[in-house]
Protein backbone atom coordinates (compact mmCIF):
# COMPACT_ATOMS: atom_id res chain seq x y z
CA UNK A 1 0.00 0.00 0.00
CA UNK A 2 1.32 3.45 -0.89
CA UNK A 3 1.98 5.70 2.09
CA UNK A 4 -0.22 8.50 0.76
CA UNK A 5 -3.12 6.06 0.32
CA UNK A 6 -2.67 4.73 3.86
CA UNK A 7 -2.74 8.29 5.23
CA UNK A 8 -5.92 8.99 3.24
CA UNK A 9 -7.61 5.85 4.64
CA UNK A 10 -6.73 6.75 8.24
CA UNK A 11 -7.85 10.36 7.70
CA UNK A 12 -11.21 9.43 6.15
CA UNK A 13 -11.87 6.76 8.80
CA UNK A 14 -10.81 9.04 11.66
CA UNK A 15 -12.99 11.90 10.39
CA UNK A 16 -15.99 9.56 10.07
CA UNK A 17 -15.48 8.14 13.57
CA UNK A 18 -15.08 11.59 15.16
CA UNK A 19 -18.25 12.90 13.47
CA UNK A 20 -20.15 9.82 14.69
CA UNK A 21 -18.89 10.56 18.23
CA UNK A 22 -20.00 14.20 17.95
CA UNK A 23 -23.49 13.05 16.88
CA UNK A 24 -23.60 10.61 19.81
CA UNK A 25 -22.69 13.49 22.15
CA UNK A 26 -25.69 15.41 20.78
CA UNK A 27 -28.24 12.64 21.03
CA UNK A 28 -27.14 10.60 24.05
CA UNK A 29 -27.93 12.47 27.27
CA UNK A 30 -25.49 12.88 30.14
CA UNK A 31 -26.99 10.97 33.08
CA UNK A 32 -27.72 12.42 36.51
CA UNK A 33 -24.68 13.43 38.60
CA UNK A 34 -22.80 14.10 35.34
CA UNK A 35 -22.17 10.48 34.35
CA UNK A 36 -20.77 10.82 30.77
CA UNK A 37 -22.98 8.23 29.08
CA UNK A 38 -22.24 9.63 25.59
CA UNK A 39 -18.50 8.96 25.80
CA UNK A 40 -19.14 5.55 27.34
CA UNK A 41 -21.44 4.59 24.45
CA UNK A 42 -18.89 5.82 21.86
CA UNK A 43 -16.05 3.90 23.54
CA UNK A 44 -18.02 0.65 23.89
CA UNK A 45 -19.28 0.71 20.26
CA UNK A 46 -15.72 1.42 19.05
CA UNK A 47 -14.37 -1.47 21.16
CA UNK A 48 -16.98 -3.80 19.67
CA UNK A 49 -16.03 -2.62 16.17
CA UNK A 50 -12.26 -2.98 16.65
CA UNK A 51 -12.65 -6.55 17.94
CA UNK A 52 -14.99 -7.46 15.08
CA UNK A 53 -12.78 -5.91 12.39
CA UNK A 54 -9.58 -7.43 13.78
CA UNK A 55 -11.08 -10.95 13.83
CA UNK A 56 -12.28 -10.56 10.24
CA UNK A 57 -8.86 -9.34 9.13
CA UNK A 58 -7.23 -12.28 10.94
CA UNK A 59 -9.48 -14.60 8.91
CA UNK A 60 -8.41 -12.71 5.75
CA UNK A 61 -12.02 -11.72 5.01
CA UNK A 62 -10.92 -8.08 4.73
CA UNK A 63 -7.77 -6.65 3.15
CA UNK A 64 -5.12 -4.46 4.83
CA UNK A 65 -6.53 -1.18 3.53
CA UNK A 66 -10.06 -1.86 4.76
CA UNK A 67 -8.69 -3.02 8.11
CA UNK A 68 -6.59 0.16 8.49
CA UNK A 69 -9.54 2.41 7.68
CA UNK A 70 -11.95 0.65 10.05
CA UNK A 71 -9.69 -0.07 13.08
CA UNK A 72 -7.12 2.75 13.12
CA UNK A 73 -9.50 5.18 11.43
CA UNK A 74 -13.16 4.69 12.38
CA UNK A 75 -12.79 2.86 15.73
CA UNK A 76 -9.85 5.06 16.74
CA UNK A 77 -11.70 8.26 15.80
CA UNK A 78 -14.96 7.17 17.42
CA UNK A 79 -13.35 6.22 20.72
CA UNK A 80 -11.53 8.73 22.88
CA UNK A 81 -9.25 8.40 25.86
CA UNK A 82 -8.67 12.12 26.46
CA UNK A 83 -12.35 12.98 27.02
CA UNK A 84 -12.60 9.85 29.18
CA UNK A 85 -9.80 10.95 31.54
CA UNK A 86 -10.75 14.65 31.46
CA UNK A 87 -14.41 14.01 32.33
CA UNK A 88 -13.24 11.72 35.15
CA UNK A 89 -10.91 14.42 36.53
CA UNK A 90 -13.68 17.07 36.44
CA UNK A 91 -16.10 14.73 38.27
CA UNK A 92 -13.44 13.85 40.85
CA UNK A 93 -12.76 17.48 41.72
CA UNK A 94 -16.47 18.45 41.87
CA UNK A 95 -17.73 16.72 45.01
CA UNK A 96 -17.78 13.52 47.02
CA UNK A 97 -20.72 12.24 44.97
CA UNK A 98 -18.81 13.26 41.83
CA UNK A 99 -15.81 11.20 42.93
CA UNK A 100 -18.03 8.14 43.39
CA UNK A 101 -19.61 8.69 39.96
CA UNK A 102 -16.08 9.04 38.51
CA UNK A 103 -14.98 5.75 40.06
CA UNK A 104 -18.09 3.98 38.74
CA UNK A 105 -17.57 5.54 35.29
CA UNK A 106 -13.94 4.32 35.07
CA UNK A 107 -14.79 0.82 36.27
CA UNK A 108 -17.83 0.43 33.97
CA UNK A 109 -15.88 1.81 30.98
CA UNK A 110 -12.95 -0.56 31.49
CA UNK A 111 -15.09 -3.67 32.00
CA UNK A 112 -17.62 -2.94 29.23
CA UNK A 113 -14.90 -1.89 26.76
CA UNK A 114 -12.91 -5.06 27.39
CA UNK A 115 -15.97 -7.32 27.14
CA UNK A 116 -17.02 -5.50 23.94
CA UNK A 117 -13.66 -6.30 22.28
CA UNK A 118 -14.02 -9.99 23.22
CA UNK A 119 -17.64 -10.13 21.93
CA UNK A 120 -16.62 -8.30 18.73
CA UNK A 121 -13.83 -10.83 18.15
CA UNK A 122 -16.24 -13.73 18.71
CA UNK A 123 -18.78 -12.36 16.21
CA UNK A 124 -16.05 -11.45 13.70
CA UNK A 125 -14.51 -14.90 14.06
CA UNK A 126 -17.70 -16.72 13.07
CA UNK A 127 -17.94 -18.18 9.61
CA UNK A 128 -20.75 -16.72 7.53
CA UNK A 129 -23.63 -18.97 6.47
CA UNK A 130 -22.95 -19.95 2.89
CA UNK A 131 -25.25 -17.98 0.63
CA UNK A 132 -27.63 -20.07 -1.49
CA UNK A 133 -26.34 -18.37 -4.64
CA UNK A 134 -22.75 -19.53 -4.32
Amino acid sequence: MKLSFAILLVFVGGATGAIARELLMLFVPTLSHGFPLDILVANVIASLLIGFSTARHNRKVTNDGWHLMVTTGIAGGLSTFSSFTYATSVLMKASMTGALVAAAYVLISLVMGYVAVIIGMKIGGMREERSPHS
Partner: protein
Amino acid sequence: MSAADVMLVGLGGGLGSVLRWWIGRLVGERYKGHFPLGTFLINISGSLVIGYLSVLFNVDWDNRHGHGMVLNALVITGVLGGYTTFSSMQLDAARLAAGQHARLAAFYLLLSVAAGLLAALAGAALAGVQD
Protein backbone atom coordinates in the same frame (compact mmCIF):
# COMPACT_ATOMS: atom_id res chain seq x y z
CA MET B 1 -24.26 22.83 16.63
CA SER B 2 -23.97 23.78 12.97
CA ALA B 3 -22.80 21.99 9.83
CA ALA B 4 -19.54 23.93 10.17
CA ASP B 5 -18.94 22.37 13.59
CA VAL B 6 -19.45 18.89 12.13
CA MET B 7 -16.88 19.70 9.43
CA LEU B 8 -14.42 20.95 12.06
CA VAL B 9 -14.84 17.81 14.15
CA GLY B 10 -14.28 15.68 11.04
CA LEU B 11 -11.20 17.64 9.99
CA GLY B 12 -9.73 17.51 13.50
CA GLY B 13 -10.61 13.82 13.92
CA GLY B 14 -8.91 12.96 10.63
CA LEU B 15 -5.76 14.91 11.49
CA GLY B 16 -5.60 13.50 15.03
CA SER B 17 -6.04 9.94 13.76
CA VAL B 18 -3.23 10.33 11.20
CA LEU B 19 -0.97 11.73 13.95
CA ARG B 20 -1.83 8.72 16.19
CA TRP B 21 -1.08 6.28 13.38
CA TRP B 22 2.21 8.05 12.60
CA ILE B 23 3.44 8.13 16.21
CA GLY B 24 2.36 4.49 16.67
CA ARG B 25 4.53 3.53 13.69
CA LEU B 26 7.54 5.49 14.96
CA VAL B 27 7.32 3.94 18.43
CA GLY B 28 6.71 0.47 16.96
CA GLU B 29 9.89 0.71 14.89
CA ARG B 30 11.99 1.49 17.97
CA TYR B 31 10.39 -0.50 20.81
CA LYS B 32 9.79 -4.23 20.44
CA GLY B 33 8.56 -5.19 23.93
CA HIS B 34 5.14 -6.56 24.91
CA PHE B 35 3.93 -3.36 26.61
CA PRO B 36 1.76 -1.30 24.19
CA LEU B 37 4.02 1.73 24.55
CA GLY B 38 2.82 3.66 21.48
CA THR B 39 -0.86 3.76 22.48
CA PHE B 40 0.13 4.44 26.09
CA LEU B 41 2.28 7.49 25.20
CA ILE B 42 -0.41 8.79 22.83
CA ASN B 43 -3.19 8.52 25.43
CA ILE B 44 -1.19 10.11 28.25
CA SER B 45 0.06 13.02 26.14
CA GLY B 46 -3.49 13.57 24.81
CA SER B 47 -4.83 13.62 28.39
CA LEU B 48 -2.26 16.25 29.41
CA VAL B 49 -3.16 18.47 26.46
CA ILE B 50 -6.94 18.15 26.94
CA GLY B 51 -6.60 19.18 30.60
CA TYR B 52 -4.51 22.19 29.64
CA LEU B 53 -6.61 23.35 26.67
CA SER B 54 -9.99 22.79 28.33
CA VAL B 55 -9.07 25.29 31.04
CA LEU B 56 -7.46 27.60 28.49
CA PHE B 57 -10.50 27.57 26.19
CA ASN B 58 -12.72 27.94 29.24
CA VAL B 59 -14.83 25.03 28.15
CA ASP B 60 -17.91 24.61 30.27
CA TRP B 61 -18.42 20.86 30.11
CA ASP B 62 -22.18 21.16 30.65
CA ASN B 63 -22.76 23.90 28.10
CA ARG B 64 -20.86 23.24 24.90
CA HIS B 65 -22.58 26.08 23.08
CA GLY B 66 -20.85 28.90 24.86
CA HIS B 67 -17.53 30.61 24.34
CA GLY B 68 -14.79 28.70 22.51
CA MET B 69 -17.17 26.50 20.50
CA VAL B 70 -15.04 26.48 17.34
CA LEU B 71 -11.80 25.58 19.14
CA ASN B 72 -13.72 23.02 21.17
CA ALA B 73 -15.08 21.29 18.06
CA LEU B 74 -11.82 21.39 16.10
CA VAL B 75 -9.23 20.71 18.80
CA ILE B 76 -10.90 18.94 21.72
CA THR B 77 -13.63 16.84 20.11
CA GLY B 78 -11.75 16.58 16.81
CA VAL B 79 -7.95 16.47 17.08
CA LEU B 80 -7.62 15.15 20.65
CA GLY B 81 -10.56 12.75 20.31
CA GLY B 82 -9.10 11.36 17.09
CA TYR B 83 -5.53 11.32 18.45
CA THR B 84 -6.32 9.38 21.63
CA THR B 85 -8.01 6.00 21.54
CA PHE B 86 -9.91 3.86 23.99
CA SER B 87 -10.65 1.00 21.59
CA SER B 88 -6.99 0.29 20.68
CA MET B 89 -6.13 0.24 24.37
CA GLN B 90 -8.78 -2.42 24.98
CA LEU B 91 -7.69 -4.40 21.91
CA ASP B 92 -4.06 -4.31 23.09
CA ALA B 93 -5.17 -5.57 26.52
CA ALA B 94 -7.27 -8.38 25.02
CA ARG B 95 -4.34 -9.44 22.81
CA LEU B 96 -1.95 -9.49 25.79
CA ALA B 97 -4.41 -11.57 27.82
CA ALA B 98 -4.87 -14.00 24.90
CA GLY B 99 -1.06 -14.33 24.63
CA GLN B 100 -0.64 -15.48 28.26
CA HIS B 101 0.17 -11.97 29.51
CA ALA B 102 -2.99 -11.40 31.56
CA ARG B 103 -1.14 -9.65 34.40
CA LEU B 104 0.55 -7.23 32.00
CA ALA B 105 -2.85 -6.56 30.39
CA ALA B 106 -4.39 -5.63 33.76
CA PHE B 107 -1.33 -3.54 34.68
CA TYR B 108 -1.49 -1.75 31.32
CA LEU B 109 -5.18 -0.83 31.72
CA LEU B 110 -4.78 0.39 35.31
CA LEU B 111 -1.57 2.30 34.56
CA SER B 112 -3.19 3.96 31.52
CA VAL B 113 -6.15 5.18 33.58
CA ALA B 114 -4.03 6.32 36.56
CA ALA B 115 -1.43 8.09 34.43
CA GLY B 116 -4.10 9.56 32.10
CA LEU B 117 -6.05 10.94 35.05
CA LEU B 118 -2.92 12.48 36.61
CA ALA B 119 -1.96 13.94 33.22
CA ALA B 120 -5.42 15.54 32.80
CA LEU B 121 -5.21 17.03 36.32
CA ALA B 122 -1.64 18.24 35.70
CA GLY B 123 -2.66 19.84 32.40
CA ALA B 124 -5.53 21.71 34.05
CA ALA B 125 -3.24 22.81 36.90
CA LEU B 126 -0.62 24.08 34.44
CA ALA B 127 -3.22 26.19 32.61
CA GLY B 128 -4.52 27.52 35.95
CA VAL B 129 -1.03 28.65 36.97
CA GLN B 130 -0.69 30.81 33.86
CA ASP B 131 -3.88 32.83 34.52
